[in-house]
């Protein structure tokens, strides 16, 4: 039997920004892309209702915070030995959520993963708002929040600088750099789309605002040439940054001589966990968006399938890290570590550990089934469990360790109070408020980049082929298979 002829790669081929591995069979023209994505900006009653609910949640959190400022940090359930609780748990949770955005927008961009094209804008916005939310928690955790600027590394009036060997100072550098670079990356990617909004807008005031924000962008060859380079370099900077930020966050714990914390596995464990939780949140956001905004032909089942594989992979890494922790505690022979890990799964907070293990390690194994990877109801439900599991992962890392240190006389209980829960709800309200405002003011999908995956109109070609001879024809897969 003759061997099947393998396609030979063309050395002349030069890639556009994304290689369209994931096709959009129901998207035919540039104008269709513009029309359909700009349609999502129309304000609806449901959006107003969602925004009102988010603001209500934020108000609950703000009220709890003011009460805490008046009464003192004790109302948040802090007493020795547990002086880090829900606020630091939620801080790490939101920083983690932010990681998937950079993974999808920067790392998958460098890898030319086609499925990122239609979901990365949502993920990038999610990153910026998640880091903005995370940044509130060190301030909420201060007894005197109006002194928050003491966190910023600058000398005091005695010319004493902060301790640069402290992980908390590294944290400030890492988080501020991450917020700045993520916001810059989001804005630079938005410039061509802001020009589309400017050119389509009929309201003079909004046109003026979009005109200023788009910086006079004209889609010229010069602008595109430098834009693509700048975008590539920003992606190249963001990639090690995303790995460094959660490594630095993990140093907050790993540098301390506390059972369960003082371990070298923490940086990769935290980074993979962060990406895992972020992908979970991407599913939580993108699945309702594709349905409510009628964008199923942009975020197809193939896109979700590819993202689900990434979710499964990171879940396996996280699961491996969980098991490694237990193994090292046993193999290392430290009685304190062994006692801590026994306490983790059979002690006071056994239920939290089992929620963590079930949601993050066991349930994602169902993603080995392709049928489930392509079931949006399942993916959405799983994403809720992942969000829950990852919040409890941080709970399991922080609370049992602090409450069960070396000496029994130092052991103590901890219970979150209604203030903790109210501020947790407020953080979701804050995040949702910004995200809802974003989805109705700016395109939730990258118009210019999606157009790259759509074949341009041709005058002479009978088939829709690119000028360099490579087919970009959609429809090699049937639309009903992916929508």
């Amino acid at each position, binding site marked *: 039997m003759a061997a099947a002829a393998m396609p030979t790669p063309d050395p002349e081929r030069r890639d556009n920004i994304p290689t369209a591995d994931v096709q959009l069979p129901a998207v035919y023209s540039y104008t269709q892309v513009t029309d359909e994505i700009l349609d999502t900006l129309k304000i609806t009653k449901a959006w107003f209702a969602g925004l009102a609910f988010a603001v209500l949640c934020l108000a609950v959190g703000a009220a709890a915070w003011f009460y805490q400022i008046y009464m003192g940090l004790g109302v948040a359930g802090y007493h020795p030995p547990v002086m880090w609780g829900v606020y630091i748990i939620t801080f790490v949770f939101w920083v983690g959520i932010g990681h998937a955005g950079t993974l999808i927008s920067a790392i998958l961009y460098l890898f030319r993963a086609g499925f990122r094209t239609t979901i990365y804008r949502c993920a990038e916005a999610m990153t910026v708002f998640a880091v903005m939310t995370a940044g509130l928690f060190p301030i909420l955790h201060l007894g005197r929040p109006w002194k928050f600027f003491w966190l910023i590394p600058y000398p005091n009036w005695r010319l004493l600088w902060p301790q*640069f060997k402290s992980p908390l100072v590294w944290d400030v*550098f890492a988080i501020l750099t991450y917020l700045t670079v993520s916001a810059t990356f989001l804005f630079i990617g938005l410039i061509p789309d802001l020009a589309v909004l400017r050119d389509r807008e009929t309201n003079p005031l909004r046109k003026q605002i979009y005109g200023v924000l788009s910086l006079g962008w*004209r889609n*010229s060859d010069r602008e595109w040439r430098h834009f693509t380079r700048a975008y590539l*370099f920003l992606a190249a900077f963001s990639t090690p940054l995303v790995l460094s930020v959660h490594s630095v966050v993990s140093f907050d714990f790993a540098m301390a001589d506390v059972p369960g914390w003082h371990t070298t596995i923490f940086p990769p464990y935290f980074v993979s966990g962060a990406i895992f939780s972020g992908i979970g949140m991407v599913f939580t956001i993108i699945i309702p968006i594709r349905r409510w905004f009628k964008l199923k032909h942009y975020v197809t089942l193939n896109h979700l399938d590819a993202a689900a594989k990434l979710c499964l992979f990171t879940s396996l890494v996280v699961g491996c890290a969980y098991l490694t922790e237990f193994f090292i505690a046993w193999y290392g022979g430290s009685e304190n570590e062994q006692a801590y890990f026994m306490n983790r799964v059979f002690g006071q907070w056994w239920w939290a550990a089992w929620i963590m293990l079930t949601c993050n390690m066991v349930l994602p194994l169902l993603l080995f089934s392709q049928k489930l990877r392509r079931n949006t109801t399942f993916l959405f439900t799983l994403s809720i469990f992942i969000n829950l599991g990852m919040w409890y992962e941080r709970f399991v890392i922080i609370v049992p360790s602090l409450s069960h240190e070396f000496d029994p006389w130092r052991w103590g209980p901890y219970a979150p109070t209604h203030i903790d829960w109210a501020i947790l709800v407020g953080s979701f309200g804050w995040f949702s408020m910004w995200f809802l405002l974003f989805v109705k003011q700016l395109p939730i999908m990258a118009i210019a980049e999606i157009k790259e995956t759509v074949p341009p109109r041709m005058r002479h070609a009978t088939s829709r082929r690119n000028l360099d001879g490579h087919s970009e024809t959609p429809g090699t897969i049937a639309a009903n298979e992916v929508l």
Partner: protein
Amino acid sequence: MRGIVGVFPELDSTVEAIEELKKLRVGDVTVYSPTPRHEFDDVLKAPPSTVRRYTLIGALVGVTFGYWIPIWISDYWPRVVGGKPIASWVPYTIIGFEVMVLIGSLATVAGFFINARIPRITQTVGYDPRFSDGSFGIWVECRPDELETVRRVLKEKGAEEVRGDR
């Protein structure tokens, strides 16, 4: 009159028009497209972007500054703890790395703005809103005696609209 702008619905006809204009050596050609297309880079034979130089310089400045600050501060209040060196380069690498990324990224953006010549106060000359939607465009800035040649080439190659602009 400063030049002629042509609006093209198709990619291949735009490329052909650019090739013809390049062959005739008339005026300065600027191409507009709703999305980056490497076909235009090929036909225009544009030099590589110099944004990378800004990136490199920004990153080098950032990493130098990021190391210098904590080392200088350690020397400013030199206190030996546990016989360890005053300046500990291992933890300072974190500061050096983060500041390298921060300054390098901002320098990249500055390089992009400078090279792409944005922010721009006005984009009306030689521009059409269709260029951000679904059409391609060619703007040719040329001498008055070349205007008719340019107009003819753009029409012949399939422009759906050709107009003068100043």
